[in-house]
């Protein structure tokens, strides 16, 4: 067996250790925020696919440590398939976010209040079947989006990890129906050699003619029926092959030029 070419240690890995983050991923969120400032003034957030929890750590520091006021009204909920070690001020749930029951659980924790920010850094088990991996990844995003439509306040922000594969332009197009601006952003701490990027969706604006309605018996596709991003039409004949709407999102590299390039090795 050949050895892989990936270099294991890089500067971000060491930096994460120094700053007490559980994963180098923390810098991705920090660099995205540096660009978009979406964490300014947020009080209630959901961190999906959060284990081991470095994003939650960032959120906890931002919401509680940096600004201890109004702690009672603030909330961070973190969800993952994997168990997570506790983080101060973070409520953790071990569950599958594609399961409709999970979304109900999260909704309950918000007691009818809206969230300002939803993020998902989810990545499925990679099987090596590129199309399946990509599909499952997009389903994770759609599940996160499902929660978002039920929970996010108008004008709120949604951030999710994407892999820029074959059908990514279809996802951009879908997100375009729900947000004012959709950007594809790549933090410098994310490897240039990987296809990983993040969609940053700014200014949530739900379509006026569609009411999200969570039902444990509905799949993601069912859920978005009626909203323009759903694929199922009311007439149930499976449609013939057709090109679906695609659009290309703006691309932004985040993290100043002085920040470190994660592909560089020293």
């Amino acid at each position, binding site marked *: 067996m*050949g050895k892989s*070419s990936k270099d294991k240690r890089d500067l971000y890995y060491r930096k994460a250790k120094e700053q007490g983050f559980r994963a180098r991923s923390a810098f991705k969120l920090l660099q995205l925020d540096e660009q978009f400032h979406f964490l300014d003034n947020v009080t209630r957030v959901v961190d999906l696919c959060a284990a081991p929890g470095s994003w939650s750590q960032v959120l906890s520091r931002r919401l509680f440590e940096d600004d201890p006021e109004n702690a009672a009204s603030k909330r961070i909920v973190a969800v993952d398939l994997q168990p997570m070690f506790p983080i101060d001020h973070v409520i953790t749930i071990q569950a599958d976010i594609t399961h409709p029951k999970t979304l109900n659980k999260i909704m309950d924790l918000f007691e009818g209040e809206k969230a300002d920010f939803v993020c998902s850094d989810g990545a499925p088990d990679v099987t090596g079947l590129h199309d399946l991996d990509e599909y499952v990844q997009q389903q994770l995003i759609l599940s996160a989006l499902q929660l978002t439509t039920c929970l996010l306040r108008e004008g709120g922000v949604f951030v999710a990890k994407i892999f820029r594969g074959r059908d990514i332009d279809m996802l951009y197009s879908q997100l375009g129906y729900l947000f004012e601006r959709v950007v594809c952003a790549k933090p410098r701490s994310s490897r240039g050699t990987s296809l990983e990027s993040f969609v940053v969706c700014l200014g949530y604006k739900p379509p006026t003619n569609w009411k999200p309605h969570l039902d444990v018996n509905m799949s993601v596709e069912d859920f978005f029926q009626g909203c323009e991003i759903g694929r199922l039409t009311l007439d149930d004949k499976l449609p013939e092959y057709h090109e679906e709407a695609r659009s290309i999102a703006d691309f932004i590299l985040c993290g100043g030029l002085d920040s470190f390039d994660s592909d560089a090795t020293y």
Partner: protein
Amino acid sequence: MVLKARELSHYGPSICVKFHGDYVVAGYGVFVQVYEVLSGKLVNQSRVFHNNKVHGLCVENGLFLAYGARSVSVVPWQAILSSKDNSKLEKMCPEWVTSAEFSFDGSAVYLLTSYNKVLCCDLELEVLETRVVYGERAILYSGTITVQSAEKVHINAGTVMDGVFIWDLFSEKNLHHFTGHEGSIFYVTASKNGRFVASCSDDRSIKLWDLESGSLLSTGWGHTARIWNLQFFDNDTKLISASEDCTCRVWEVSQLTGQLTQTDVHEIHLSKNVWGLDVDSRRMIAATSGNDGRIKLTDLRLRTRAGDESQAFSIDDISRCRIDFAANEIVKGFFWLHFGLVVLTSEGQVLKYSDQNSVWSSIFQNQKFKSFSSTTGVQKLNLVVFSNGSGDVLIVKFSQDGTQVLNTLEIAVTELSKVTTCLVESFDGELFIALQSPNPRDALVCVKIDSAPLKLTEKYHLTRPANFNASSILYHDNFLLFGSKFSTLAIFNLRESETSAHVLNRLLPGDTITSVRFVEKSSNDRSLFSVTDREGFYCFVSIDLNNGDSDIVLENKISKGFLEGAFYDPSGDYITYGFKSNYFVMFNETRQFEIMSELCGGSHRQWLFLPNYDPNEFVFVYVKASRINIRKLHSSFVPQTLRDGLHGREIRDLTLRPASYNTRTHVFCSGAEDTTIKLNRIKESGEARTIWTFRKHTSGLQRCKFVSDQYLISSAAREELYLWKLCTDFKSNPYMSIIAVLPTSTKLPDLRIMDFDVKFIENSQDFILVTVYSDSAIKLWHFEHASQKFALIAIGKYETCCLLNVALIPLKETLLLLISPSDGYLVAWDVTKCLNINLRNGKLQDWKPNFSLMPILPDYATRVLVHRAGVKSLQVKSANGSSCLIYTGGDDNAVAISEFAVEEDELSIKGQVLSSDTAGAASTITAVNLLNGGKGLITASVDQRLRYYDVTKNQLTLQDVFYTTNADTGCLDVVSTATGSLLLIGGVGFSAWSLRDVKK
């Protein structure tokens, strides 16, 4: 002008495969391929989907059902057999289709989606009804549908977190919830008899469940990696599993207890992902397919099909044929002839075993050969040769059927103090026997014997070279070649046997040469030999036998184990054999699959491997546990592969040799994440075939590029960079070998060489090389052809980012160095002075070494921000003497044209962006390539699209977009052909396209 692009061929993952009568049906990308099982002939390839890959299929009642991703299609089976394109019937499902089956009476189709929902459709795929279990709608990785009867249909659903759900389609109720596995369930299937469910997961185990009681019956452990597929076969008495560990395993399913017992392991694919799996229970063959694009057939009865494949005899067994043995008499040697086996025992008794009637008989006894004996022979002449330590040689010649000894000859070679090695070779009825003593000063005594009457005709005393201990022999054209220890080859001219041998030292990295074979003679009178050594290396060496001048045209290593020999089979495949731990293994090195293996206990045994008179049939004889074992390998009754793939993992780079190889045939190299480099041949029809798989790199490939028709350079992590030379002098194959290795900066380098570029010095084979590294280092080298060495001639650095591409661009009297780092800039240097190099009219004239300090690159001359993220690919076109155009594709989805020019005064360099398309793709643009002498630009991006731009006015005018079926599209290369160009695109697999310009 418009570009006409046509996909010629596609090689890539095959996710499903199924037997149907005398056919094997496989999903191959967007296509379905139908092969005849017995002949392996491709009956038809039919496109069924526009863009999605076929993940599963079934054939029933003359209808064919295919599904993959969100696509489904029902097609008449006849149309699959005859029509090239059935994609107009493709329908889209709103969710991913995990599995699909016809209903019991065939009038409906069930589609199980990834949200555990079943759409019941008619044959036109109109949804009649939707069925689900209330509240259980989480995502599935796997699932199957078991249609037992019109009323009984079960859904076997494998979830991400919750184990397996079995539910009833019509009552919409969960029947069972199996929760014993850890992690995602990757496959679940039910036996036809309705008794068992088998599932596998991330945890590497297979679990068998009782469908009646819902209890776990047993767990099958054995696979060393994730398991992807499971199928019951042979009336549900057996289960077969395919795994990421590259094997498929057969399990006996106890009908009483539900115990799983592993009975067989088959090595099937080289790369880890094996997806498709099916068994033809009538013929007992398995079909598998995977990420490597290979469709493989495995004979599950390889060892019992003819019935005589495996035989074993103890001395007791043999004595039952009324043969007397002394106490402690054991087998000392054997040889396989046309009729069967000839054996010599420790008492000097010679036995023969007739393969026709399975009878052992004693021929004679000769006390001289009691001890220190060796047994060998010549199959063609139907004779065996015994020798002993004192130099006695006994030749026994048999009749064709073995019933009679026709002739014997005994010779005594007295000039050697002691004989430890006896090597035998023959040519045209003549027999050569070489005897060697342990004393290096003794001559190598060789006798020539006429085999017809068995008469000694000549005796040679060959002077042994220093450090020489012959281990293999070859006669060719009046020369005797001996392979020896210390990886030495000695060539003796028998016409002038007194003169000393030509000696080739250190031919291979290993120690003992195990075989030498003649391959062919070139038109310029050089002979090509294949040489193997025990450590697993092999090489092809081109030798002028008259003066010993030699050239290693290929050197390689088998993937694991010891190598005892290798040869070309009649179809031109290179076959190796040797030992891998306790196994003897025969391997098709060209097509990279194991032909057979035998658990023999290892290489220290007495063993013999010979053809069985048919070039496709072999015998392996060995002694294990005091038994003589005879393992025969008959040629397979079905082809072993229906389609050969290429790499099992992502292709990182591919490069076409600029000049064609033969008429309408080209060679290209591909380098992949699996660390191998493959040298391949491709016809202009698109048909490709791998010739050699090189395992020189130890890490994933970064780049490989032909820098001329003869030279290729490859680079990878750990600062690996090799210069290869291609040899096209021989008819058998093109050959390729490393002629120089770039020195590394430390003993344990861990930098990646991201890219390199080469400029030849005019009228010489010397060149300047530049390499760029992942830590932003830049190094310039001079390659001297005479010494075949690289010398570092300058170093430099750019900021602190990874450097992705580099080019050396001669402009008039200036040599420009251009890099693209991951920050989106194009950065240029004038390196003429620093390198002490002279140019005239854009040609490198000469280079003078700088004997003082190592030059360090000054600050860059200029840089231009072209992209918002890393520049992934770069192509250069020199526009006129003083300027050049740079075409780039970036991680920011953009394509751009920039210009760099040397100002009149030759003192400064200016760069600017001329044109850019910031929405050049939906994803990273990984490759750009100029076409038509620079009039067109083709780009490839990870969104699996190729875009063709007109760039005549230095503006990017999009002309056309094509879809490619290769995921992770990462590289492309183009070569001109008589009718246009041949384009290769690499990613997961590769595809070949023909490009033609047509007038509007």
